[in-house]
Structure formats: C-alpha cells, structure tokens
C-alpha cells in the first residue's frame, strides 16, 4: 500500500511542487495550507508522515506541532522551513527531523524514507 504523506505549506506554488515531487516518488499526498487544516487532515486523512512548514497564517507550524503530537503521539513529523533559527525553540525538538528548505529536495526525501521505515515504532 502507498504511504500517505501530509504536506503542510502555505505557499501554493511550493505546495504543488512538493505534491508532484512526492507523488513521483510513489507516495500518496494530502495537502493543507496551514496548521488548522493540517489537524483536520490528520483526523480525516490518517497520514503516515507529516511535512510541516512553520511560518504560516491561521495556525503556525510550531503550534500545530504540539496539537498534532497531542492527538497522534507517534506520527513522524518533519519541520520544513526556510529559517534555521527555530531549531533553538524547545518545541521544535518534538519533531523527528528539521529540514531547511532548499531547491534540492534530496535531504527531505532521504528523511522521509528513513522516518517511514522507522514508522510509529517508538
């Protein structure tokens, strides 16, 4: 069965890009434009992994991270942001990986593979 990834990203262009790239890798992709939509998708779509932008309107990724962990303690989460400074926020340590956005999606794809193998084993 295809693994399901939830991409949470407020910039539509990027969201489409990631969606296409990940579909090409063989994943099923769900999308959300902010943290609040992400939580709805978490419940409705039951993803296997979440890629979470931080700076977003409505509900940012850091707040969504806490709420997601409260609902689904073990789901793998990758923080995916243009800013490296959030690494210093304690809450960011609750994510399984922290990937700085780049034109090359290699690092992101590697992390996805590793974390999907690990899955919810914790």
């Amino acid at each position, binding site marked *: 069965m295809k693994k399901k990834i939830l991409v949470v990203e407020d910039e539509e262009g990027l969201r489409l890009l990631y969606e296409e790239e990940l579909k090409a890798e063989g994943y099923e992709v769900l999308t959300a434009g902010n943290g609040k939509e992400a939580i709805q998708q978490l419940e409705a779509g039951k993803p296997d992994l979440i890629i979470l932008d931080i700076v977003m309107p409505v509900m940012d990724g850091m707040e969504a991270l*806490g*709420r997601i*962990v*409260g609902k689904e*303690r*073990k789901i793998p989460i990758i923080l995916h942001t243009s800013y490296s400074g959030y690494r210093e*926020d*304690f*809450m960011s*340590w*609750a994510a399984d990986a922290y990937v700085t956005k780049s034109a090359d999606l290699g690092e992101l794809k590697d992390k996805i593979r590793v974390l999907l193998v690990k899955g919810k084993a*914790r």
Partner: protein
Amino acid sequence: MKNVLAMILAGGRGERLYPLTRDRAKPAVCFGAIYRIIDFTLSNCLNSDVRRIYALTQYKSISLHRHIQLGWNILSAPLGEFIGVIPAQQRIDEHWYQGTADAIFQNIYTLQREMPDLVLILSGDHIYKMDYRKIIGLHLEKKADLTVAAIRMDRRLSREFGVIEVDGDWRIVGFQEKPEEPKTIPGDPEGILASMGVYVFNTEVLVRRLIEDARSDSTHDFGKDIIPEMIGKDRVFAFDFRHADRGGTGYWRDVGTIDAYFEANMDLISVTPQLNLYDPQWPILTYQSPHPPAKTVWEEEGRAGTAFNSIISNGCIISGGSVKRSILSPKVVVHSYAETEDSILMEGVDVGRYAKIRRTIIDKDVQIPQGMEIGYDLDEDAKRFTVTGSGIVVVPRWIRL
C-alpha cells in the same frame, strides 16, 4: 541560584484527603493552624535563595491562587524574582495534565522563556524543611543530568513510595514505583530510599526527555516513566535528604490521608514537635489576614475560658469554654460550657454553648449549634460526616447544622 527555576506541581486532587479537598487542591489545605501545605515548599525555596518560582495548578485552584496572591507577593520583579501561578491552560494540547511529566511538558514555553540552567521540580503536597542549595550543589559536583532527593523509610512502607536503588557512589541504578519487594539500602536491609518528589534537572536534558516521553505510550509521570527511562542513558544520582534537612529530625510528610494529616497536625502540639516552626534561620511564611490577638474570657466556677496543650491563632476567643490538645486556626470562637478535645478547628469555626467536640476536624466557617456532640458516637456521626478508619470525624465546609 539565579540560574535555577523552580516548578512546583500543585495540581493534585488529593482525593484521599476528601472532604478537605472538596473545595481546594491539596497544596491549599490548611496545616498547623495558619499555614497552607504549599507554604512549606515555598518557604524552602525562599530560604534556599531560589527566587524564580512557578506553581502549576489544575483542579480547584482558586483557593491556592488567592493564597499565593495575598501572601506571597513578596519578591522583587525588577531583580528578576517572582512567584507565579500557572493554571492548566491547554497551551500545547487540549487536555488536562495527564501526569507529572506532562504538566511540565505542557509548560515547555515557560522553560523556553526563562531559559534556566537548572530546573528544580517540586511537589506542593509535602511538609518538610529542606535546603535545596545542597541538592543543587551535589548535582553540579556530580555533573549529573538528574538528581533525585531521597529519604530513608522502613522497607515495609515500600508500596507507598517510589523506591530508589543506588550504587556505592549513590548513582541511581534502579527505580521501582510502589514495589512489593523493594531493593533495600546497601548495608541497611530494613531501609529503603524513597523518592521525595524533589528533582534537579539540567534544562536541556529535561526538555529532551519530556519530549521523548510526550511522543511515546506512557503515563507521563516522572516516577513511573521519566526516571526509569533516564537511568540507562543519563547521569542520574540520588541525594540523601539528611544532608539538607533543616529540621534535623528527618521530618518529611506526604499527609496523603485524613489520618496522616491529623497525626501530623497533632505532632505540633507536643512539647517538642518533630517539625520545628520556631527556627529563625528557616522561617515558614504564610498569609494571615489581620486579626486581633487570641484571648480567653470568663473565669467562673464551671465557666472558664481555658486552653491546654493547644495552638490558638489570632482572632480566636475562648469564651467560657475549654480547649484541650486542639489546633485552632484564626477567628475560632468557643462559647461558654463548650468543650473541644484532640480536634482541629479551621478558620472561623464557631462552637456553640455546651457543644462537645472530640477527635474531629471541622472545616472553615462551620457553626456548631448549641449542645451538639461530635466525636462521641461515631455511628451517629457517620450518618452525616466522614469518619476515618481510626475514628477521626471530618465536618466539611459549607455544612449547615
């Protein structure tokens, strides 16, 4: 000590202290006539020079909040000192605290903001006098990630405590929560080391372990989950309470039950109590509203205001009644010909003429009508009050008699 942040867990329901905890959390329960249980932990902090303090509350927190606001607004904010109360606010997640570790995890933003080097985690439920500088000193000396305060207890009590197993260097090598067959102290087969719920953590290690715990199936409890998990991978040490015991008597009480609460109070009216409240080097602070001094009135045959072996607080009037071996909070009135023996009367209790009270705890503001007897016929008392196994009667607040 400026790099230390104290977090006091003050959200316990204290169900076994019901009905004293019907209207208030356990840390807000009155103790020793004028104190609240949390006053001992807060006083320990100030006397230990720990002056950045948060109390984390949850259930029935108004009474506690009010007490801290009125009585403990004594630190200097410009110097970076504070005693703050943080109610459960669902900042991270939409549920009440699920365990002691979850209570701290849900306040991770507070740790982020304060950025202390060390976090001193305490319980607001315990009565003891401890110099926290000593455990912090050991923690730094051992370069520990976590140091847990431990007190020797008889091994037969193991089912009431988290039991710590140490090696010769007092490094913790095992931790069992309420075990039947406890690991005893090396060289002391009748003794166990009980965790006092006093923890010193390096902040970064604390945050990492809390997050790991939050992301796993766990009861989210320091004793059951965090400490056992850390033993294998971090530097975890035990600290012997005797090295920091300001009373020198090894006094530490959980007062988890009505009977334990009653006994711990009654200790205070003995000639030399185990818990010394008179040490000028270690004052126990509290909030007291202003009342005139206690007084006794009437000196007639059969109608004399008397008190023996008792604690009488400000605002009390012993008016022609007799008080023996009892603890009276402020503003208690004992009217003519009334008798109270071996009892705890909380603030504002009024004992009517000819009433007789024995081995009874009466909660705040209760009016005992003329001639009523409590504590003499336990079967009768049990019809309307709580009566404990050892025969202590508890008259709850708000009751109309």
